[in-house]
């Protein structure tokens, strides 16, 4: 059963549409068929054209339809009543199995590897030695599901995924204002994910934000683009739909069906929003905030490339489905309409874009590469699996934790690193979590903090809501755009220099420093085999192999002092490929 119209099911988001027109808009999108009678005939016509041929197809084919673009750049819609129920874990595993073309089911990751992976992917930090031991020693048959549940309910879960989306948004802004409010949007997103607000509500809030950045941190998405309609439209399509229309800003899309007109019609939804930098505000200590406000007069115009001096043609708002709305709408109405179009269950791309990113982040490989391109020409891996999981996400009312739960409990997520992909592919496969992922700057920082202690001690300047200087140091060196394919993210020399030589890290490793974690460990574990085991457990979340044991023992024996030996061993372990990646 599909969700009820937004107007009734989400009183939180839509107080009451400000006009009858607004109401019509929302209902058109969310539950058009039921509301057909209320709609002016001409407004419904394009929708009917887009949906009717599809309604005749069996539900599965309709979803599997490989061509997202039907007629010269028209996003095809689906009937939400065909979504069915969310998948169960068993159903997902069956789909994964049927997607595999090889008889080899792939090895399951050893439990210690799995625990490290799970901690990093949910709460963004490696497990403590006790977490690994507890898991290995537990006899409970559903210990995996229990651990997943526990981690999804930790506040660090929301923070971790908030950082992912913070970076996905921030790394593609050309504006220098992207630093302002960066931590506020992270905190806001963390709250949303921890409360498990549905993804459509989160996105709607970001697209519809108004006012000062202090009271509406979700306005960051628009503010970071300085409210430029073309940038907001292009990025909203890329991030939330996986559809890249930004190329069409200047010319018709060369490899896709989008035209320049269509691009600017989408931009027109954001064409009456403006941002300005407000100084001397008293709502924060910085004294600076960005304000999103409406431009009451004037139309959105598409620049005339042949005559840059002329004002250009007026473009009214029309979504990629070909559905226009009135150009008389106010800024609030336009953005309300846009968010309805973007997040509607009729629009399959909204679910797909999120599912693809979540899957890619968890298993290392998405259904498409790059993860933000679901276009006509994109090579989709395992389309049936992708469609079913996306449909499930929409059917669950965009329940983010439910999607996480589903993927984390699946056989694909449990697969061992380096085991052959069950689909017979030689390289990367979304069917196994076999692809190593570079730790993000925050994962690395939080993991080092757990191992060494006290990294967060360098506090930010008084009263400013922002991360510590040391975390920022890591972000500067290790940050990357999460939309970049994992294989394109290279290590850098400043990263290596930081890990090898940073005075703060050096200090935390130093056993002579009062309160040194390593010194305490050395006191607790006077025997070398135990001490080596403890370090491996602490840094890599596993016990050392006999070869590693031998190397370590040999090194300790040859060293001038025990303290120096273990400082060196810890230093070396922190610089290994294994530590710096999530396998």
């Amino acid at each position, binding site marked *: 059963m599909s969700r009820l119209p937004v107007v009734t099911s989400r009183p939180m988001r839509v107080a009451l549409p400000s006009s009858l027109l607004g109401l019509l808009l929302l209902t058109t999108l969310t539950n058009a068929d039921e509301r057909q009678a209320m709609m002016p005939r001409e407004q419904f016509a394009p929708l009917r054209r887009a949906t009717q041929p599809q309604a005749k197809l069996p539900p599965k084919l309709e979803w599997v339809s490989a061509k997202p673009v039907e007629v010269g750049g028209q996003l095809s819609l689906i009937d939400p009543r065909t979504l069915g129920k969310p998948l169960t874990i068993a159903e997902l595993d069956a789909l994964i199995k049927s997607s595999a073309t090889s008889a080899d089911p792939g090895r399951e990751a050893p439990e210690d*590897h799995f625990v490290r992976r799970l901690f990093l992917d949910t709460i963004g930090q490696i497990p403590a030695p006790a977490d690994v031991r507890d898991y290995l020693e537990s006899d409970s048959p559903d210990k995996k599901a229990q651990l997943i549940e526990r981690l999804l309910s930790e506040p660090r879960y929301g923070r971790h995924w908030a950082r992912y989306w913070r970076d996905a948004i921030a790394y*593609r*802004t*050309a*504006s*220098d204002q992207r630093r302002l409010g960066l931590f506020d949007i992270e905190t806001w997103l963390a709250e949303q994910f921890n409360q498990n607000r549905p993804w459509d509500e989160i996105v709607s809030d970001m697209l519809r934000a108004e006012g000062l950045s202090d009271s509406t941190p979700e306005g960051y998405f628009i503010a970071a683009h300085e409210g*430029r309609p*073309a*940038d907001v439209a*292009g*990025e909203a399509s*890329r991030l939330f739909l996986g559809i*890249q229309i*930004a*190329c069409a*800003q200047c010319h018709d899309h*060369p*490899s896709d069906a989008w035209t320049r007109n269509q691009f600017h019609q989408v931009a027109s939804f954001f064409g009456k929003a403006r941002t300005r930098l407000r100084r001397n505000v008293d709502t924060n200590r910085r004294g600076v905030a960005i304000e999103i406000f409406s431009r009451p007069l004037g139309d959105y115009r598409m620049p005339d490339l042949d005559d840059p001096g002329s004002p250009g043609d007026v473009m009214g708002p029309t979504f990629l489905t070909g559905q226009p709305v009135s150009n008389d709408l106010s800024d609030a109405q336009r953005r309300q309409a846009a968010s309805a179009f973007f997040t509607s269950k009729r629009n399959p791309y909204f679910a797909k874009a999120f599912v693809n990113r979540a899957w890619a982040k968890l298993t290392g490989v998405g259904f498409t590469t*790059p993860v933000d391109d679901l276009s006509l020409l994109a090579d989709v891996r395992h389309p049936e699996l992708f469609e079913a999981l996306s449909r499930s996400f929409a059917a669950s009312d965009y329940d983010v934790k439910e999607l996480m739960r589903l993927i984390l409990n699946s056989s694909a997520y449990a697969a061992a*690193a*380096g085991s052959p992909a069950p689909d017979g592919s030689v390289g990367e496969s979304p069917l196994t979590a*076999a692809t*190593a992922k570079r730790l993000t700057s925050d994962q690395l920082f939080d993991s080092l903090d757990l191992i060494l202690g006290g990294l967060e001690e360098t506090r930010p300047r008084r009263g400013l809501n922002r991360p510590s200087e040391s975390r920022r140091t890591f972000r500067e060196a290790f940050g*990357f755009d999460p*939309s*970049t394919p994992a*294989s*394109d*993210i*290279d*290590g*850098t*020399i*400043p*990263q*290596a*220099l*930081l890990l*090898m*030589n*940073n*005075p703060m890290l*050096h200090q935390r490793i130093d056993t002579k420093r009062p309160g040194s974690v390593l010194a305490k460990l050395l006191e607790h574990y006077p025997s070398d085999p135990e001490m080596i085991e403890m370090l491996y457990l602490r840094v890599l979340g*596993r016990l050392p*192999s006999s*070869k*590693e044991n031998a*190397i370590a023992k040999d*090194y300790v024996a040859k060293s001038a002092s025990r303290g120096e030996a273990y400082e*060196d*061993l810890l*230093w*070396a*372990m922190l610089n*290994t*490929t*294994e530590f*710096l*990646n999530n*396998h």
Partner: protein
Amino acid sequence: MTDLIRRVSNATIDRHGAIQRRDFLRTIGVGAAGLSMLGWQDLLLAAAPTLRQQGKSVIVLWMQGGPSHLETFDPKPKAEGEAKSIGTAVPGIEIAEYWPQVAKQMKDITLIRSMSNKEGNHQRATYQLHTGYIPGGTVRHPSFGSLVTKELAPADFDLPGYVSIGGPARGAGFLPVEYNPFQLGNPAKMPDNVDTIVPKQRFQRRLGLLNQLEGSSTKGGDDAMVSDHRTLYSKASTFSTSPKLGVFDIKDEPAALRQAYGDNRFGQGCLLARRLVETGTTYVEVTLGGWDTHFNHFEQVSNLAEQCDPAFATLIADLKQRGMLDDTLVVWMGEFGRTPKLNGRGGRDHFPRAFNVALAGCGIEGGQVIGKTSDDASEVIEEPVSVVDLFATLCTRLGIDPHKENMSPLGRPMKIVDGGTPIESLLS
């Protein structure tokens, strides 16, 4: 083994992008024990004779804030203002009175007085004058420094190829991160984290232990990843222990020369730029901020020129004296000019319609003036030069094809410079 070396050197020669670099690593990966037996440096050494060494470098003196063209190199006796003009070593060329030392070097400097642009916003114009592209859209264009480094930097250089001193540098954009600038705040201080902290011997022992652990990881799987990591650590530790690291220690220079460059960050930054280029760095940008003179224009410009004039002039003389000027392109520029009319607060406001740029070295014949502005400096009346024209000119001087394409993340090829015609009188 010979076979391995040959394959490696082939990969190295066309090593100009991440893709090639990956191939390179894969090749080594196939060579199994290759790295541990030979070592990265040995391999490069084997390939060294065939490496393409262009040997050209760039030093950009970036005047952040938009320097007034009238009070720099395009003085107008008839325009509003109080600065006088002075003669230079080249008869017929006059510049503003604040630049007596630059005036003496004019035989090696060429002025473009006809720069013209539309961006009057600091951020947008700075972006444009650093990338050659107008900001907007979601493509993060690579900075010119990254583009040039990608084209010209030798693969075996053990220090960063692109260094930015004293300013917020523009980065590699969509190019691989290895083309990001190495940023330095204080030229008189060693870079962050470059000092090994522990004694070199112990550092080497640690590296040895790391290497052993890397070789025995039980997680197995991605060999390419491990070798990638080893390469990186090899390069970073080489940098950290490089005998060339002393290049960052400008205290080595004679006191008189340090004094001549000027005892301030910008002056010392220019000195460090020369040392870096001398050592093999491809692109250095040194920033002097404060040119946004909406108030007290003349006082501020005079103070800024006091720092910039000796540094710029000494840099040219120093490069020339060392025989380096022929292969080093020096560019003095900012994001726009300033209004010919004074505002009510004794300042000048942003003015992109006409501004100037000074060039020297890399075969550019000095003592020339390109273009002309009207008597009130408000209009370019001869030989207008756009930003892309300027960038195309710089490329040509460096032996880079300005229309060579790089692939953006959207899979759209983007030229190093989109359009633009090199200034004809600067072609040799």
